[in-house]
């Protein structure tokens, strides 16, 4: 049994309560923990109490975040804590483990909750009563919220509340978290309980279970059956309607189920990319406007460049991806809420197991197609540590939205004007990422993190109408969290990157001889024309040349030259190297870097086809084309597979538990990207 194994001195045996003298409790608010089976309605109930006041924070010593809110009761304020769902006290996933640890008072810096608000799904009393038994046995003050009362009322059998209250030995309040019915009564019950601090005393029938030696599970399930019998509920009556059964015949079908899964996901992704363009355009325009507006207050010089290009430009460049990420979250939460995600994990398990990953790993893998950061954060639903590590390691191989601008640029370069080939190339790039991720996962499971995949055990809940409100609140929380976590790293990175491409400053007249010649030529042409637009155009050209020269002089530019021998076998020249190196921290940066390197303005860089034409005209010193088919393909393969995202690495470090894994991830992905780009370049060059 779990309790017996505990080394924590706070948790001695099941019934006795850790003695906490009232003084040490004073400065803290009393803590009310929401405990219940998955899908019992804890979060919905939490939202009823908290509204928009919820805060999201990490549990100490873990990376699992929880939502808490200060709630007013007559007796005084209390802190309400929303916990992940539990089946019993045999936690398997890190999330369940945290919920269990909170309940048992094993989380560092947290005392055991002062009150347990046990949420029971009234439409499935018997199963929920098992956890109720385990919780009541802990002997903490407990109030039961008998949730889904609206649904339970529609069922043929009625729950006898008096009998249930008697059997549980704690107050039982029927509520409907969704409609808000019964919340007032629940509030009063909590109030009374907080005031009197009355520990739960396990009823006699239950005490027999804990002392029974045969099978502690069986004993409690027997108890649960008796209790629900006594209050007039026979579990054969409740359970899934015929609807769920019928839908499941399709969605969990070994073959049709998989097609259904891909169809659902295709729709979700199409919606994401469709809807996200509007807010993305707005964010882009907003940051552009902000940059210009702030810039107008600052004189020309480094400060302006730092603030406008470095900070506003850099942060804006990353925040444009936020809408996609949030819309993805929103849809995934909705799907989760309908009960479909469990089916998806069920059908995918068969496929994922082939590469050694559990079916649950598909959710992070899906999310990674928007952004690896939330994907890595969502690997907490995977039970086994090795499975989780392997998933984290391969997630950044999947094509995230930051790669899209790079794909757009390179594919326009390769297949300008041929929509079919361009489409195929996009599909190919996505597929390469997926295949690489699966193959690497397979290899890791065979070598560095060996072990059987954990067998699937997943509840397939009844289908439900999802709650838009819950999904919206959760998404807003995520948004805050993402901006806070990724934001700081991105801010620092933007400044560093800006510095590397700005310093050291080129002295007056420090341009290379070729550039000086070119400038002189253009200046000559200016004197020969009187057309104002032509003059402006010439001046523009000079500015571009100077920008390029300044970049070449900077740390970034020099590094590009130093790395020439390294990247030559891939077909990159020093200018591409500058792009590759500058995108070490954030891959999409290559587009704007190449724009500077090849002397085109922002507007052109954003127009894939026009930019491609400019790139296509570039020549090397010996006059040959820079972006040959071989180089373009090689660069594309490189960008599909390379790590190039420092925020992701920071998250890997957090979630995998150490820089070691982040470095390993960077290392293997770099080798993979380099190796395959090399093969690509050499093969294509050989045949053409």
């Amino acid at each position, binding site marked *: 049994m779990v309790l017996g194994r505990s080394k924590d001195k706070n948790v001695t045996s099941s019934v006795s309560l850790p003695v906490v003298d009232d003084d040490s409790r004073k400065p803290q608010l009393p803590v009310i923990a929401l405990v219940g089976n998955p899908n019992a309605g804890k979060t919905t109930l939490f939202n009823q109490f908290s509204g928009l006041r919820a805060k999201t924070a990490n549990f100490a010593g873990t990376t699992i975040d929880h939502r808490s809110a200060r709630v007013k009761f007559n007796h005084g304020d209390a802190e309400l804590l929303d916990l992940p769902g539990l089946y019993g006290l*045999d936690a398997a996933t890190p999330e369940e483990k945290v919920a269990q640890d909170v309940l048992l008072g094993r989380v560092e810096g947290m005392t055991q909750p002062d009150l347990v608000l046990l949420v029971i799904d009234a439409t*499935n009393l*018997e*199963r929920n009563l*098992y956890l109720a038994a385990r919780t009541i046995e802990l002997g903490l003050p407990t109030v039961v919220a008998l949730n889904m009362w609206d649904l339970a009322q529609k069922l043929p059998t009625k729950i006898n509340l008096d009998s249930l209250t008697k059997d549980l030995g704690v107050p039982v309040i029927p509520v409907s978290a969704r409609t808000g019915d019964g919340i007032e009564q629940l509030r009063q019950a909590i109030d009374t309980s907080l005031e009197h601090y009355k520990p739960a005393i396990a009823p006699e029938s239950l005490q027999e279970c804990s002392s029974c030696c045969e*099978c502690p599970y069986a004993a409690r399930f027997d108890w*649960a059956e008796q209790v629900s019998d006594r209050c007039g509920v026979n579990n054969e009556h409740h359970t899934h309607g015929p609807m769920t059964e019928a839908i499941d015949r399709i969605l969990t079908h070994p073959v049709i189920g998989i097609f259904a899964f891909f169809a659902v996901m295709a729709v979700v992704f199409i919606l994401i990319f469709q809807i996200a363009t509007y807010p993305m355009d707005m964010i882009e325009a907003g940051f552009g406007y902000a940059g210009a507006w702030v810039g107008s207050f600052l004189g020309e010089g480094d400060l302006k460049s730092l603030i406008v290009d470095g900070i506003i430009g850099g942060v804006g460049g990353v925040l444009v991806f936020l809408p996609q990420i949030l819309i993805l979250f929103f849809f995934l939460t909705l799907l989760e809420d309908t009960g479909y995600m469990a089916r998806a994990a069920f059908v995918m398990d068969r496929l994922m197991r082939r590469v050694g990953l559990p079916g649950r790993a598909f959710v992070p893998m899906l999310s990674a197609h928007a952004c690896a950061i939330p994907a890595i954060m969502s690997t907490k639903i995977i039970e086994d540590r090795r499975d989780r590590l392997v998933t984290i390691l391969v997630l950044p191989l999947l094509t995230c939205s930051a790669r899209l601008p790079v794909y757009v640029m390179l594919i326009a370069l390769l297949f300008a004007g041929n929509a079919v080939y361009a489409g195929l190339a996009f599909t190919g790039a996505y597929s390469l990422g997926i295949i690489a991720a699966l193959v690497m996962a397979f290899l890791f499971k065979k070598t560095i993190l060996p072990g059987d995949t954990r067998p699937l*055990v997943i509840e397939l809940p009844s289908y439900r109408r999802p709650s838009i409100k819950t999904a919206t609140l959760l998404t807003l929380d995520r948004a805050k969290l993402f901006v806070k976590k990724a934001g700081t790293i991105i801010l620092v990175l933007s400044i560093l990157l800006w510095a590397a491409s700005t310093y050291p400053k080129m002295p007056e007249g420090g341009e290379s001889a070729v550039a000086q010649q070119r400038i002189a030529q253009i200046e000559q042409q200016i004197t020969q024309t009187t057309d104002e637009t032509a003059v402006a155009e010439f001046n523009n050209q000079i500015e571009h040349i100077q920008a390029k020269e300044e970049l070449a002089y900077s740390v970034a530019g020099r590094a590009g030259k130093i790395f020439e021998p390294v990247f030559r076998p891939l077909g990159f020249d020093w200018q591409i190297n500058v792009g590759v190196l500058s995108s070490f921290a954030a891959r999409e940066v290559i587009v704007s870097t190449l724009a500077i390197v090849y002397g085109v303005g922002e507007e052109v860089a954003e127009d894939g086809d026009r930019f491609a034409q400019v790139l296509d005209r570039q020549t090397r010193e010996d006059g040959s084309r820079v972006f040959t088919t071989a180089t373009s393909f090689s660069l594309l393969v490189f960008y599909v597979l390379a790590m190039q995202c420092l925020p992701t690495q920071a998250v890997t470090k957090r979630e995998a538990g150490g820089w070691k894994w982040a470095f390993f991830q960077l290392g293997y992905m770099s080798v993979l990207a380099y190796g395959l780009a090399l093969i690509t370049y050499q093969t294509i060059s050989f045949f053409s």
Partner: protein
Amino acid sequence: MSQTVSPTPAPDTPDLTGLTPMHQLKTHQVAEIKYVDASHDDIARLKSMGICQGRRIQLIQAGDPLILKVVGVRIGVSARLAKRVYAEPCCSSGKKC
């Protein structure tokens, strides 16, 4: 994957005659769980979801993973785990065995 068919017999292995491993039940067949071989780490998880001695289960969908119904809930389980659960099929899908 590794389908090691070596249910290390515990010293107190009960008499398994007349019992069917859960993954071999027929679709829609109802059975009562008689014995669970707890030698796998994930068995505790199954048990806290109700797959333990004395519960009645119904096989909803055969295969790997399979779907079964226990205490009114449908649960998807790998055949790997399911075969460690031994059940006695009931005569009909009636209430009591």
